[in-house]
């Protein structure tokens, strides 16, 4: 399943790093960030969404502390 999120304050370089980090999360199949439309699309096996979201947020904090993530 795919989940859409909005995210703010990511520069293109951080976006690429963040994509890599999110792809490493267990259960995430693919992640794409559009800097222009400020969107994050995650493709995941919908088992443990709560945990995945938590880890995605953690990855955001790690790569770009300013980045805010919220549901689209």
């Amino acid at each position, binding site marked *: 399943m795919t989940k859409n999120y909005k995210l703010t*304050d990511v*520069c*293109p*370089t951080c976006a*690429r*790093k963040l994509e890599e980090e999110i792809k490493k999360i267990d259960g995430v199949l693919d992640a794409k960030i*559009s800097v222009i*439309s400020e969107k994050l699309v995650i493709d995941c096996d919908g088992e443990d969404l709560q945990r995945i979201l938590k880890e995605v947020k953690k990855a955001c904090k*790690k790569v770009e502390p300013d980045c805010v993530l919220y549901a689209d």
Partner: protein
Amino acid sequence: MNKKQKRLLYRIIVSAVFFAAAMIFRFEKEIELILFLVSYLAVGGSILLKAAKNIYYGQVFNENLLMAIASVGAFIIGEYPEGAAVMLFYQVGELFEKIALDRSRKSIKALMNIRPDYANIEKDGQIIEVSPEEVKVGDTILVKAGEKVPLDGIVEKGASTLDTSSLTGESVPKDALEGDAVLSGCINISRPLYIKVTRPFEESTVAKILELVEKSEEKKARAENFITRFAKYYTPAVVSAALLLAVVPPLVANGDWNDWVYRALAFLVTSCPCALVISIPLSFFGGIGGASRNGILIKGGNFIEALSKADIVVFDKTGTLTKGVFKVSGIYAQNIESADLLEIAALAECYSNHPISQSLKAAYGKPVDTTRVANAEETAGFGVLAEVDGKTVLAGNEKLMRKYGIAFRQPQNVGTAVHVARDGVYLGYIVIADEVKPDSAETIRALKANGIRKTVMLTGDVKEAGDYYANLLGMDEVYSGLLPAGKVEQVEKLLEEKEKNKTLVFVGDGMNDTPVLTRADVGIAMGGLGTDAAIEAADVVLMDDQPKKVLSAIQLSRKTMRIVKENILFALGVKLLVLLLAGVGVADMWEAVFADVGVSIIAILNALRALKISKR
């Protein structure tokens, strides 16, 4: 400006005040240091904090950390003004960049503002507003004057005019009468319309356009991939160079530590490629957004790149360069008035559903009095035999005339001839031909003038017809009598002929030409969002069926690519120059930070020009 940006602006003002005070007035060294430190911390505190977090998470090549090192380093070697200035200008640049980026996001959003917010439906005798997603196929919606049509459908009741400019870029209003199909995204100008919904919202024109544009970001152009790859190596390379610069000359050549460290710090200031990186996708997105506003949907940056290198443009004939609607183009009467000949033919053919008889009836223009016709008999491949006003009339092709032994005139025109005879006497013939679109010839001319090497026409029609239209339109080549498979074959031959690093563009109306659309470097489907297969296969979809939009698509692709190249060359050039000058000690940290911030802002502003293509 949003809240975050405003807060940054206040911090910049505070910082600038302290900075100016320290620069303008003469103070004791200690007081000066305090003033610079206050100025520095006002703008740089948050960066230092983020840098600390970056270290904690092991993110070394992060711009926050690099800026922190550059500025702290400057303070350590005693260059207080530089230390504060670097951070101050860096933050000014960040603020400008964010504002410019927000602006462009907003312009793109405004451009794509075709999503309807609500639909009016009648429930229990009352009109209520519901979200377009909730409306089902077969429901009737009310669109009042001034409202956006929320879903695709057919006019059930009412008559009005529609503004289709947000879909097609055309400003001429279109009539919407009972029975007409209406596309979502249009704006109803004059009177209320009751529309019977034919497609759910997810499949509506608006939803499809938005999806296409949104997905276009995924298909990246080569230029964009190049920059992303470049960015990956640029920062580590610059940082390593800075490290070497700071350490090697003092150790090896006995250089002055302070001097070389200073040069290295100037290096760090220019180490972030972010603005350059974002200006490229921004240019492409701007180009795609601008194009979509013009009724040209481009499925990705890679197709903008390919379109800009068009060398051969191949057109399908029927429905693309011609209207695909058959009309009476000439009446050649013998022993009778032209109008009477047309009347007899229309009457004789009145029971036929063949496209030719439809054209005859359309040209006749009056309701056909079927009581004057009796014993009509149609033979497929020949024509009609009927009694009109009690006289035997033959209307059909040459074979029909031969069958009944009637001498006929050989037509000299292109098109289908309908010969007519009454009671064994030949009365002449009527020619029915496809009409060329008004802007076809002009488009072909303009394509040639714009550096397209070859224009080609493919058609399933016979050679005479193909040659006639190709000549009329000024095509370079024409291939006639082709079946869909033959068209693919021909395009493959042409693909081998094109110049290296150039592209072949195929333009069709989406009927039966999906294989060719796929095979060409760029497949352009005309006539909007009619056939789903064509939209899937095409790389570019034109909302209306004007050939001149092909020219617009090529021109705006070229403009977008020019902007992209300008940005790459300019930004890289300035960065390398600054690195060079800083390395040899000519440019100081001031100049480095100015160059870096300045280039970013200019590149983003330049990218915004791609958006303005549509406002011609």
